[in-house]
């Protein structure tokens, strides 16, 4: 009997051990999430990621530093006082790389695999937009080795290299947009519903933007000539009243998640366009009241009330006809001189005269006027060269173009990029007063996560007031 018992015990123990692995196999496959998705399914997610990069926290930070808004409380008081720490930049960096760039590249590869070349073009354009923004704000950034499993410590490519690569991406994108090889993705393309001419124009405007960052005005002029040709073709971040998850991000920030953090008290931009402002730029040919009311609900607050520029359902410009017109103005001026520049500026003013990008609600007759300028307006003593120190007329024109760009880019990253680009041309740059010290910040800090975890991160990291290479 005992022997039988031992045998049974042995069988028991053995069966337990043998069944050990088998019993638990095959149930660790996540029933809640897929492990793959095709390129077209990824598109909307990739596009919306780019929206958050271009319109979200980074745009607000740039705009506060650029004198468009004022940080009032808590983290935004620190922002206003330039009291930034490396850790503050973790979320935006993670958004750019891990959420956006990685998926844009993954989508690009998947689109290549199915030979959906038009979708490859979209991926490339978004990749270029992400990296153009990143290198403009951080200088040297990981690019060639970024988001690859082969490189645990992605190298920081020199800023000039990144700009070159961005142009190459956009060139390739334009080629791909012209291809006829595609599977339709109109329903997933929340920017242009698969409209290739619009994508081509956007790619060209972005090319102009990034050429200007490196002061290659010649190439920028060429690109802008093929850029966004009408407001209807604007590269817009779409917003709607559908639900909070579609609302304008400025609106979400100011009205919903962080009321009181940011306003426009004492903001330099307000003083420029508020008819009651100290530096009001209106003159006999210019009335800014409508644009001011569209952008600011009062002298102290950005306009996130109904149909204002930052209202919940108002779409946000990521690249626009207005930008493209002003790129043409500045580049044509710098390459071909005063007359070309003036003509281009007047094209922009004609656009604004017809209402421009100002919301219809705010287009009250008499509240906006953008009559064409003539050369005499920029001569010493002219309405646009009337300050204590008189400028040469061509510098006065450039100053007006830069000021126009400054106003047009209120709330957008490009305003901050402009300010830093022309910081040495002190005669024509917009004189934004720093809230403290002698300079506004010249870059974003490398985030703490890269400092901690990427051995390629420059050590020590450049400070907030160290210009990036192209602006040095």
């Amino acid at each position: 009997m005992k022997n039988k018992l031992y045998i049974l015990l042995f069988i028991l123990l053995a069966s337990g051990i043998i069944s050990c692995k088998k019993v638990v196999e095959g149930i660790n496959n996540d029933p809640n999430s897929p492990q793959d998705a095709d390129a077209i399914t990824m598109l909307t997610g990739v596009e919306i990621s780019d929206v958050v990069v271009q319109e979200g926290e980074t745009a607000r930070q740039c705009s506060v530093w650029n004198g468009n808004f004022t940080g009032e409380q808590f983290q935004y008081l620190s922002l206003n006082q330039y009291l930034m720490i490396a850790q503050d930049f973790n979320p935006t960096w993670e958004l750019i790389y891990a959420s956006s760039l990685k998926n844009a590249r993954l989508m690009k590869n998947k689109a290549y695999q199915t030979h959906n070349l038009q979708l490859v073009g979209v991926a490339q354009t978004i990749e270029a937009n992400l990296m153009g923004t990143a290198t403009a704000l951080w200088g040297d950034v990981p690019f060639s080795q970024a988001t690859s499993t082969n490189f645990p410590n992605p190298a920081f490519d020199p800023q000039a290299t990144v700009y070159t690569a961005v142009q190459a991406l956009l060139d390739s994108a334009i080629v791909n947009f012209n291809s006829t090889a595609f599977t339709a993705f109109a329903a997933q393309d929340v920017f242009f519903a698969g409209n290739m001419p619009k994508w081509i124009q956007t790619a060209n405007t972005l090319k102009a933007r990034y050429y200007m960052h490196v002061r290659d005005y010649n190439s920028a002029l060429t690109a802008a000539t093929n850029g966004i040709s009408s407001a209807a073709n604007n590269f817009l971040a779409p917003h709607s009243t559908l639900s909070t998850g579609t609302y304008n991000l400025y609106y979400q920030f100011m009205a919903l998640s962080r009321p009181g953090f940011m306003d426009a008290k004492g903001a330099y931009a307000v003083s420029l366009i508020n008819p009651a402002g100290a530096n009001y730029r209106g003159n006999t040919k210019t009335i800014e009241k409508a644009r001011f009311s569209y952008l600011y609900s009062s002298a102290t607050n950005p306009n996130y009330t109904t149909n204002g520029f930052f209202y919940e359902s108002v779409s946000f410009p990521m690249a626009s006809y207005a930008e493209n017109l002003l790129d043409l103005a500045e580049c044509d001026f710098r390459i071909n001189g005063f007359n070309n520049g003036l003509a281009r500026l007047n094209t922009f003013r004609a656009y604004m005269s017809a209402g421009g990008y100002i919301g219809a609600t705010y287009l009250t007759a008499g509240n906006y006027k953008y009559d064409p300028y003539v050369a005499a307006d920029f001569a010493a003593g002219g309405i646009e060269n009337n300050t204590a120190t008189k400028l040469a007329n061509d510098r006065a024109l450039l100053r007006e173009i830069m000021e126009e760009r400054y106003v047009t880019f209120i709330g957008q990253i490009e305003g901050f990029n402009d300010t830093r680009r022309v910081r040495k041309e002190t005669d024509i740059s917009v004189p934004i007063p720093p809230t403290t010290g002698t300079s506004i910040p010249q870059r974003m800090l490398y985030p703490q996560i890269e400092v901690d975890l990427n051995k390629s991160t420059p050590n020590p990291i450049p400070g907030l007031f160290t210009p990036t290479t192209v602006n040095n």
Partner: protein
Amino acid sequence: MKEKNSTLLMLFLLFFIPIIVFGQEVKPVAASKMDNNNSVKHLVTGVITDRSGVLLPGVTVRVKNSNTVAGSNTLGVYTINVAHPDVDVLVFSFIGFKSVEEKVGGRVRIDIQLEDGNSNLQEVVVTALGFEASKDKLGYTTSKVKGDRIAESGEVSLVDGLGGKASGVRISRSSGSDPGAASQILIRGQSTITRSTDPLIVLDGMPVEGSSRGESAGGTTQQNRLSDINPDDIASVQILKGASAAALWGTRAANGVIQITTKKGGGDNTVISFKSTLSIDKVSQFYDLQDKYGQGSGGVYGLNNTLSWGDKIANRSGGSDTYNLAGPQFVDALTGQTFYTITQKNSQQTFLKQNYDEVLGTGSYLDNNLSISSGNAKSNYFFSVGDLNQNGVIKNSSDYRRTTLRFNATKEMSKWLSITNSFNYSRIGSDRVQRGVNNAGFMIGLLRTPPDFDNSAYIGNYYAAAGGSFIPNRQRDYRNYLGASTNPGFNNPLWVTNEMTNTDLVNRFINTSEINATATDWLKFTVRGGIDDFSDRTLNYFPFYTANANTGQYNRDEYNQLQFNIDAIARANKKFSDNFTGSLIVGYNYNSQSSSSLGAQSVNFTIPTGPHNFSNATPANITTNDAFTNTRSNAGYASLGLDMFNQVFVNANGRLEAASTFGIDNSAFFYPSADAAWQFTELKSFRDLKFLSFGKLRASFGIVGIQPQPYQTATNFVSPQISDDLGGSLNPGLYGTGSYVQSVNKGNPALKPERKREIEFGTDLRFFDNRLSTSITYYQNKTTDALINIPQAASTGFNFIYANAGSIQNKGLEVDASYNIINKGNWSFTADVNWTKNNNKVLSLDGAASINLGETAGISSRAVEGYPLGVLYSIPWQRDANGKELLDANGFPIPGVTSAVIGDPNPAWRGGIGFTLKYKSFGLRTLVERSQGGQIADGTDAVLVDYGTSATTANESTSPTPLKTYSGTIIPANTPFRGNIQNFGAGNVALEQSWYTGPGGFFGNVGEEFLHSATWTRVREVTLTYNLDAPKLLRTNKIKSIVLEASGRNLFLWSQVKGFDPDVNVGGSQSARGVTYFDNPPTRSFLFTIKANF
């Protein structure tokens, strides 16, 4: 499923075949009625219980002056042959109890109640597999807490009831006044970095859910599921602290095991017990707020201003404020009072006390318990019903109600077979407030309210213009004086308590069944299976115009969890000679846990005051979550034990386990353990030492593990909400046709369990005839392959990868002592001491600089290499090479830009001391606990100085010399100003608004500024008991006893912080500790209890 069924079937067959086969030839073990000689014997039988009716197995029953000895069985039943029924005396003796002599006097039935004797004597403990063993023979240490000590603590939760009662076990609260809030249980320090630190809870042999779910620094507090168990149902709690003690639970044992044994019935007499407790709870600590300065900024009154840096209230003209009667208005919905825009603030009235009293007051609970226990020689049962109904100190919205039902029964079917079943049902309903890092939170609204703002009118109609149309139900608070904005900024605390609801309803069934079969006198089989099944419904309702949810928000989450566990165990015990006994245990364990969660959130209500359901929102405003988890493990185990020369006891255990959460390449893992004990006082040379009654040396070694999270072996694609840092987020699902992109978290096919190795040495000594007993243990453990969500440089394309990386170590010392100082006549006085020191160190994180464990964004609790786990991490002041603070041009310290370790929340040691004094029918018991060392960051006051409501900011100083402020302005000499004077090293400077709203406040990032010593001493419990002689007093035999108790919980607290309890934690019961941020206030309680036995 098929596979599971077949495995189970096989197991049952394997066990029952031998049972049936051997059952046929079992020889009777107990004495038979007739002996071999012809003389008639007198058989006496009876049931032995302790005073509370708990059955006592293993009691020795001896006929005085003879060799006849018997013992009580598992049901406490004994049977003994008596030769001379008229004159013989039975002696009942049992370790830990006073011996009783009882004359037989011809009776055949004698039931005995044993009284607690010297509790320091040899104890019976419950081992990992749920079997009883003699504590004196163990090679490891465990702590045992008796059920009545937990029930008497006055704590609603079983977890808190354990506080201060055992060495090596740290109970830390997360919230003071939220009824049912989870507390952290930490056994021998944290031995995992990111996995749960909760110990495994084993209830009557069945692992049950004991942890909390969904804790964060915001939201509401969450409950420990361990609190679902009624403390009055518990007979004892055994805490298996070390790896060796717990090793037979494998990957679930790394945080220790808490074995809970519930009460069993007993005795022929049916005992009905009733207990009723009333508790009165009061807020014990509250922040010191100022009432000298009004709302505003820069010394100027400002309507709707966020801050209280306004004008001096005493300097106002007095009388009523001046209003603009023609402008917008607010009409209070409750009183009809109309509010207008204040154009001139004249009133000197302040509302600190009124604002407090409106939302905080006296809480209470009523706890009723009824139990019935009974049985006979072959069976016993215990039935109980309990109901605890609590209204917390936060008015209208801190309720907790726990209703429990228990039925335990054991039946001896035959000499060789017995069946036990224990059934538990719990229903827990609660309502809580939003708290912590959360603009919708209760304390944020209350503590940030300026002293000159009256919160009482919180809901009403807003008129944009006098005489115009109005919008109903707008929220009015200090940042929204007329309710003009849909966003109140923060919530009026009355809005939090009266308009918002956060309810929770748990229905839980736990059932355990056990079959014990005795095959031969040396071989036993046990099959024990159980289920733990609960549902948890959580509802949150934020009405229109609530902060964080201006157009309403409604959440509903339906969570279900099921655990199924079965053990099949064979035990053999063989005495080979007088000096050599061996035992072998072989078993198999199967465990399956599954959960499902279905919930949704709606925002932007269609009708602001519409029904609380998802119909009241458009589809685009509803997001759902739908998730399943399923994990499974199985294991075979064996344990070999040897008793040698009655003084050396050795055990060796092994468990081979496989779990579904392991990576593809990792099959089963083996967990060995061993322990040895030597009772050296059995040696001749020690027997003569009069003062030393008992001495044992012990040593043990063990390896246990922790499983990975499920579903981490692959990288997922997700449908993300793309978040905008401090702002909102965009949802790609609301655009296009929906979208999936690759997650920022990288999967890992190579996952394996964490492994914790522990060695332990100790000694148990008893002196002076066992009156003083001590136990000292040193342990050292090291966890390797710790599972970490390793942060990745985002430029690699991922934010995290889940991997086995890093290691962590704990070294500690545990001391327990108990001294029965007086035991004379009617007097007895006992002192109990426990003391624990644990040093923790993160040895490696495999390159990850730091792992964020939680708390707030500004001050986090992290794992950092070379530091104890959970160190506080924030921005320090800039310092030179010598560690001296750098100062700016105005003489103020300069905030750094990169975060660093600033403090350590871990205490140096914790200790408890308890006294029990008894005199006749009176008893007095106290428990004092001290936590020495560690730090806590007071994020609350750090914010309140920024807001100017902290009393610190209302000091009025006069500048002795011209003083610079942080912003660089100069306060001329002899000028009074609001603020403080400090010298940072470059002469006196003025701390005023620009300092406190800058680096001197929470939002200046410098967490270092707000650290405090977390040392505390508290009188946890004081209980006065009076045992009424009911039969005599009430002249009835129906009531057997009445006990009256008056007690206090958390009566006194000494600490170096003001306004809060340093044992609080904004992150809840998880491993991150050391920060408080607008947590709900702590309480003290006064309890009155009556217990009656019928």
